[in-house]
């Protein structure tokens, strides 16, 4: 029996530490700790609510745009502003392309090395690799010559003796199961995906000026104008360049991402029974199909909203955002009324209270407080959020496209939907979602073109732009499905300024510590039962944790440094 710590957990965004009790080659208990905090919500207090999106977007540069969007939705909800349809469509396009880019980067650059042994690729036969690649996909770079060049590049890299980012990987670990040819194919696509993500995301520069951290969000709409007769606005030229990029994205997902997942999965089917975790799933839903604020119009969303409890796909429960609350029992914060009961976001209070060991330290005190994350709960339930939650809620809701793609993937692998509740299921769900949303992105572009063609060029609803037009107090929330799961921002505005701001983040739902009832979050639950072949090289922990795609900069936050009560007004 041994307690181990993985810190830093790499190939994620931010600072995550996992401690685990290993007994008989299996994890019996696990603790998830975020080890960084900035206090962004405290910084927001007293500022102009129209600036909030620009501040909150900096919560994360990997999930860029997501906090900007949730923020403008929160302010629009508070002030009862409905952005023009064009603005909603542009926001959808930005978000959809973010999903495609972010999921591709996650699979190839953050997750793949958990399954792919780079060193083994040196033993691959280029001709056999080409045969393998051609058998699963019509991806163009699949010739023996190409794979020979990739192998030579890798050979040279290793022989030069500077392994750089590949130094000290778990190469040769017994949990790596892929044949050399599959490893070489994956290395080739790892390199291609590096170039792909850079080129594809230029769509964000077109619509947002730059990526990361786009700069065209506005409370009430978007700052990128539409004018078919101007060279300084969305015009036919930009629309056609966007179409080319979106199509390239769909091609890459169809020709590389999906086939690669289907090729790798059969070697790791044991991981379809590992890492299941909580069995409760929550999706806020997203991609409004009209102009309404998705926070308050859940029936108008392309991906549906709902809750699944106890792995029961037959019932998708309705979701009430006001049933969300957060514990700090094991978090480095303190509540004025005691740390055992949770508080809802609008009533939130938080004061940092670090009680951990003084650095440098070997282990945290996991019986006490041990993370900068809080423990959010829905109606008392610990729930998982993210691609798997979204796909399960859509699947359970009978979403036609999602049902078709999920069934096709399950059929190809010869397995039933029960395997989705696993580490492998999480990774497969992300791929399924990427395909569904890459296809959706071209449909949304068509809708934008059609709406512009109908003569609508509005991008901003400006009647409440001036703070003098606002009520003395207002509060609202903005909900968004970020690539890593359901995200909500909660704002209270008083006398034209931010009085109170809170953010409940996907990686907080998944990566938070135990709550007041001793119930852990999704990471902690999913790690229990995970096999560990070598305690010194816990590759298996990385597999399950990476299947969630953690984002810790997003997850760590604080509500209100003074813990003062917020004003009482009706949610609009």
């Amino acid at each position, binding site marked *: 029996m041994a307690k181990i710590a993985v810190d830093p957990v790499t190939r994620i965004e*931010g600072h995550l530490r996992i401690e685990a009790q290993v007994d008989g080659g299996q994890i019996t208990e696990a603790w998830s700790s975020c080890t960084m905090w900035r206090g962004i919500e405290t910084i927001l207090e007293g500022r102009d609510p129209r600036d909030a999106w620009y501040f909150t977007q900096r919560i994360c540069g990997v999930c860029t745009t997501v906090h900007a969007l949730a923020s403008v939705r929160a302010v629009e909800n508070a002030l009862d502003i409905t952005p023009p349809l064009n603005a909603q469509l542009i926001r959808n396009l930005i978000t959809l392309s973010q999903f495609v880019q972010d999921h591709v980067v996650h699979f190839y650059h953050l997750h793949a090395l958990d399954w792919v042994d780079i060193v083994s690729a040196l033993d691959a036969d280029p001709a056999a690799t080409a045969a393998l690649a051609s058998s699963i996909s019509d991806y163009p770079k699949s010739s023996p010559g190409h794979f020979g060049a990739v192998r030579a590049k890798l050979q040279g890299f290793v022989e030069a003796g500077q392994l750089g980012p590949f130094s000290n990987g778990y190469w040769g670990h017994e949990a790596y199961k892929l044949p050399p040819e599959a490893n070489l194919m994956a290395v080739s696509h790892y390199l291609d995906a590096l170039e792909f993500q850079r080129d594809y995301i230029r769509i964000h520069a077109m619509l947002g000026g730059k990526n990361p951290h786009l700069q065209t969000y506005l409370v009430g709409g978007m700052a990128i104008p539409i004018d078919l007769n101007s060279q300084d606005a969305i015009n036919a030229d930009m629309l056609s360049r966007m179409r080319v990029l979106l199509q390239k994205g769909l091609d890459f997902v169809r020709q590389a991402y999906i086939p690669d997942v289907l090729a790798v999965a059969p070697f790791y089917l044991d991981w379809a029974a590992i890492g299941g975790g909580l069995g409760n799933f929550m999706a806020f839903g997203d991609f409004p199909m009209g102009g309404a604020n998705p926070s308050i119009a859940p029936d108008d969303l392309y991906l549906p909203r709902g809750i699944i409890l106890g792995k029961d796909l037959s019932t998708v429960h309705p979701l009430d955002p006001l049933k969300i609350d957060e514990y700090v029992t094991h978090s480095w914060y303190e509540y004025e009324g005691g740390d055992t009961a949770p508080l809802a976001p609008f009533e939130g209070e938080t004061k940092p209270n670090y009680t951990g060991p003084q650095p440098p330290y070997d282990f945290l005190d996991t019986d006490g407080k041990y993370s900068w994350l809080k423990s959010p709960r829905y109606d008392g339930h610990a729930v998982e959020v993210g691609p798997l939650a979204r796909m399960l809620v859509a699947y359970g809701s009978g979403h036609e496209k999602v049902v078709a793609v999920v069934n096709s993937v399950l059929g190809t692998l010869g397995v039933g939907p029960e395997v989705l509740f696993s580490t492998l299921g999480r990774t497969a769900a992300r791929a399924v979602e990427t395909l569904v949303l890459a296809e959706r992105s071209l449909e949304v572009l068509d809708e934008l073109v059609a709406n512009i063609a109908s003569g609508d060029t509005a991008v901003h609803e400006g009647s409440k732009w001036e703070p003098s037009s606002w009520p003395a107090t207002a509060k609202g929330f903005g909900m968004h499905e970020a690539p890593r799961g359901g995200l909500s921002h909660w704002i209270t505005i008083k006398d034209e300024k931010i009085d109170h701001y809170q953010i409940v983040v996907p990686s907080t739902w998944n990566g938070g510590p135990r709550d007041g009832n001793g119930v852990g979050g999704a990471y902690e639950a999913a790690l229990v039962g995970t096999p560990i072949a070598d305690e010194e090289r816990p590759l298996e922990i990385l597999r399950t944790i990476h299947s969630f795609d953690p984002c810790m900069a997003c997850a760590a936050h604080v509500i209100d440094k003074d813990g003062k009560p917020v004003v009482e007004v009706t949610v609009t």
Partner: protein
Amino acid sequence: MGVGTVARVEALPDRLARAGIERRTFLKYCGTLAAVLALPDTYARNIAQALQSVKKPSVVWLEFQDCAGNTESFLRTRNPGVADLVLDILSIDYHETIMAAAGHQAEAAKAAALAEGGHFVVVEGSIPRNDSGVYCTIAGKTAWQHLEEAAEGAVAVIAVGSCSSFGGLPAASPNPTGAVSAANIVSGVPVINLPGCPANADNITATLVHFLTFGGLPALDGEGRPLFAYGQRIHDSCERRAHFDAGQFVAKWGDEGHRNGWCLYKMGCKGPATFHNCPAIRWNEGTSWPIGAGHGCNGCSEPGFWDTMSPFYERLPKVSGFGVESSADTIGWWLTGGTAAAFAAHGVAKSVQRRVTHQPPGPASGTLESGPDEQASEKGGV
């Protein structure tokens, strides 16, 4: 296969050849870098020579109170491509977001790189100092401890993004964690600031290449920023400047002026107070930039911009940190004439502004190789 056990001998031409990078592509890349560095075309040759004569420089990339936005930006680097830069031109020996190793194996890879010395330290994110630095720990040690360790024996510390350059968002009022810049921690090693939110990939790459090509730091301004990237006001090289001079302003989002690319000054653009080469090199392979897309500049490469440039939609004279009281009617005179002289030597102007607004200090002058005046003449020599 552990790092440091194999001699580092291979030169770039062999690596490039084996990597299948054509020489023409490589030279084009060097030309791009020369352009970013504002050097004559002939310098592409010097850059190529420098890159070919060295082994891959070791880069230890540290992430502290960050959002990984600068990492993402770095991964958007252009020709010859991010894969070649990350794998063949640089040796990224430690970088939490991309490295294969985790836990103590990751820390061991870093220790090996540091033991060898002569490395570059790239810092992303601010460093918290309140409560002994408990607000950011990695492998049980504080960011503060990690940075002090890594800087020892380094060739230079490159602060990428506004958080590591100036404290950035975590240091915005009321700075709950006591966040500071890399230069506030490091001593005895030159610190280069590449602010921006995030830093532009072209400027990160160009800074590394400048060092490899010329064997020293690029000339820096009073805020520790390379003149090649931060030597000009956005307002002076903005594609919309003619509209400013003609008095054509956007007055409302989506109005005729907005649709036709008029000046965004009245919508809160901070271009007149911001030094950065965004208008020249743009973003994402030269695709666009914020003003080009229709939103004003928020001044993200200036120290303390979170406090001094906000509220972001207020016109410049009303912005608290700017230190100039003026009505909108006189702004035209003020921007075109009144501040031109001051900004011509903005190293001085900025330090005055800093005193006025009580911002945390930027890099201590002792961390730079030379003062602003010498640096300016260095640039003239190039």
